[in-house]
């Protein structure tokens, strides 16, 4: 690389950025009948055809997107193509780190613009068939659910009704220039989250996390975790909260940055939240955390817990065992009071449950808890199903299993359709040691014979597989046996004389991976089955995001099964963790009495 070339390219990038702004201004100059601009209704994209200078990398070409596709595209997000290597480089990665983000970005954009496959499903298969498909959940709306918006038949219906004004992402739409120009009265202030992200980037640009990652990834993750917590606990996730999450460390780390500066740029509420989360120079850390436990408002507590959740998720990356122990101890001693001190009782219970779940996960990841001790007969939490199809390679399957286990999955299941028995056996033999190392049971769908040969931890049987009562005697003592059901009668048959350990019930929501194979049950019927069942109930079907995971926890399920929510996520480990945190928070909030 020629020295200084980055500076020169930056100047050229500046030319193109100004040109892109010209496009945005041109598009934002058109009003729609609902008062929004054409920019709100569409998507503008600016991108190169390759990246990384001389390397000509095509895997992580930077894209800048503007516009909300009428609420179908989430705003203010930053998506990393793949994790950086340890040396910070972004090319020359192993095949396991497949270049999947850009194909998924294309899928996401096409879907946001209303394009569907012939069968009506979202576009999820752009690019080479061998690449795993799916959408980028972080860009799909319904903050922070990642759900797809309902299909809207025509623009005329859109304009006629009030739907356009009531969409959840309305206030987040990026149109600051259009708003400023139009000067319409009555429009509330919209915080520009991209500016909050830019300030966080600027303040932290020279900093690294303890394990070497760019520090700015931390406040971005805190924002995601805060969004997941808010959804799980049915609290609004405002732009103020999002901005405060992004900025929660800038007063401590920004050279000369003051609370008044934040107030001027992002408003008094954001500045107040960040100030509560910032430790004054004359206060020690325990003192600050104790003060937050007694004086902090509920939003500040939620943000502090989100901050700690992300740190706990990455605790195993710190190699110093004593520091790990000390951090876990501090989390229990000083952070739990912050969570439990929330004024809203359900919030207090939910935050405490989420924190305890993350502490347990961190203990397991750090090897500070014996695997035997963490293994439960029927665990609770996230049940991750990995679909093995002929076009997904083994390395991808194993990496997904590893990521899900590291993210705190309670149970893992391999579901193989159309592959050879030998391949399934080899995959199980490859995956079982690492699953056992972290104490996560690995069960096999349908194939009791292969599970027995491989020594898997259990079997899950569908309604057309071998009867569970006949399979039970074949399994070793302690093996997990689950059965599927779609109705209360089927579920009752399983728990009364099925010999199973848990009952899977669903589809609770419309499923993107199994459409039309059974009637959608809804949450009310799940609640009824959970109430009547003496066994653990695993909700399945359409649990595509943390908000739906929280919903099944509120309905009383002990487990929530996911497929695409992890397999299609840009970061499967964090996605699993977010689902687990949402489950624990919602389950904790549902419980009566102290957590």
């Amino acid at each position, binding site marked *: *690389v*020629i020295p200084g*070339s*980055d500076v*020169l*390219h930056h*100047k*050229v990038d*500046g*030319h*193109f950025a*100004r*040109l*892109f702004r*010209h*496009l945005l201004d*041109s*598009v934002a*100059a*058109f*009003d*729609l009948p609902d008062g929004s*601009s*054409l920019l709100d*209704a*569409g*998507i*503008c*994209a*600016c*991108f*190169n*055809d*390759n990246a990384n*200078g*001389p390397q*000509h990398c095509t895997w992580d070409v930077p894209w800048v997107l503007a516009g909300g*596709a*009428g609420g*179908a595209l989430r705003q203010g997000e930053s998506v990393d193509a793949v994790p950086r290597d340890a040396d910070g480089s972004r090319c020359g990665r192993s095949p396991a780190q497949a270049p999947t983000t850009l194909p998924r970005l294309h899928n996401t*954009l096409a879907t*946001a*613009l*209303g394009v569907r496959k012939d069968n009506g499903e979202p576009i999820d298969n752009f690019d080479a068939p061998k690449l795993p498909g799916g959408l980028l959940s972080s860009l799909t709306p319904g903050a922070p659910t990642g759900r797809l918006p309902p299909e*809207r038949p*025509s*623009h005329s219906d*859109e304009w006629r009704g009030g739907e356009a004004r009531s969409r959840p992402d309305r206030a987040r739409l990026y149109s600051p220039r259009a708003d400023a120009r*139009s000067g319409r009265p009555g429009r509330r202030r919209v915080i520009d989250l991209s500016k909050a992200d830019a300030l966080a980037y600027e303040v932290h640009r020279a900093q690294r996390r303890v394990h070497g990652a760019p520090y700015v990834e931390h406040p971005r993750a805190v924002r995601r975790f805060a969004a997941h917590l808010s959804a799980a606990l049915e609290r609004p996730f405002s732009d103020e909260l999002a901005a405060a999450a992004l900025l929660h460390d800038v007063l401590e780390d920004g050279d000369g940055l003051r609370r008044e500066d934040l107030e001027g740029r992002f408003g008094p509420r954001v500045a107040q939240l960040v100030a509560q989360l910032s430790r004054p120079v004359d206060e020690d850390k325990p003192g600050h955390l104790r003060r937050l436990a007694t004086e902090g408002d509920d939003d500040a507590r939620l943000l502090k817990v989100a901050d700690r959740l992300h740190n706990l998720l990455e605790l195993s990356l710190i190699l110093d065992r004593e520091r790990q122990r000390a951090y876990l101890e501090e989390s229990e001693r000083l952070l739990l009071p912050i969570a439990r001190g929330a004024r809203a009782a359900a919030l207090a219970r939910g935050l405490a449950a989420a924190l305890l779940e993350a502490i347990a996960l961190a203990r397991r990841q750090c090897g500070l808890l014996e695997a035997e001790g963490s293994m439960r007969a029927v665990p609770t939490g996230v049940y991750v199903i990995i679909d093995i199809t002929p076009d997904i390679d083994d390395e991808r399957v194993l990496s997904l299993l590893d990521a899900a286990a590291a993210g705190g999955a309670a149970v893992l299941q391999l579901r193989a359709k159309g592959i050879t028995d030998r391949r399934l056996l080899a995959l199980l033999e490859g995956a079982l040691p690492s699953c056992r190392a972290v104490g996560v049971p690995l069960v096999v769908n349908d194939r009791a014979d292969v599970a027995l040969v491989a020594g898997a931890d259990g079997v899950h049987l569908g309604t057309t597989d071998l009867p569970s009562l006949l399979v039970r005697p074949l399994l070793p003592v302690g093996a997990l046996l689950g059965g599927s059901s779609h109705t209360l009668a089927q579920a009752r048959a399983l728990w009364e004389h099925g010999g199973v350990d848990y009952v899977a019930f669903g589809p609770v929501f419309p499923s993107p991976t199994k459409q039309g194979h059974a009637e959608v049950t809804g949450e009310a019927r799940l609640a009824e089955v959970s109430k009547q069942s003496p066994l653990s109930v695993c909700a399945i079907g359409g649990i595509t995001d943390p908000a739906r995971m929280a919903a099944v926890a509120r309905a009383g399920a002990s487990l929530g099964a996911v497929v695409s929510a992890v397999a299609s996520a840009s970061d499967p480990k964090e996605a699993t963790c977010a689902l687990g945190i949402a489950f624990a928070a919602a389950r904790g909030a549902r419980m009566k009495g102290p957590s």
Partner: protein
Amino acid sequence: MGALASRYSHGAGAPKGRSRGRAAPSCGAQLVCARAADEETAIETGSAGFNDPTGDNLLRTVQLPMKVAALAVACGLTRSVVIQVGNGNGGDLRFIDPDSGQLMDNNHDISHRPAPTTRVAL
């Protein structure tokens, strides 16, 4: 370099401000080119085979089709537009350094050493 797409099938927008017109698409807007006649002639003359290697000129010029693209989407004449600025590696374009005012190396050579035949022997 740029792409624009909308969910809406046609006639989505009405332009702000005044407009005067030559064409009347389905949205009913009165459209016109606001340039003087001699400027229009210059644009029409220069458009065929436009090939200016100075990047800054190209970026200025491409603003015009951008405005047309926005208008076309707003009026429902199309739902998507792709505008490519330059070629694959930007090897044909040279941009002006905003600090020095001088033309920089072509965009490709900025981060690649020129081919040996063009290097000055020392």
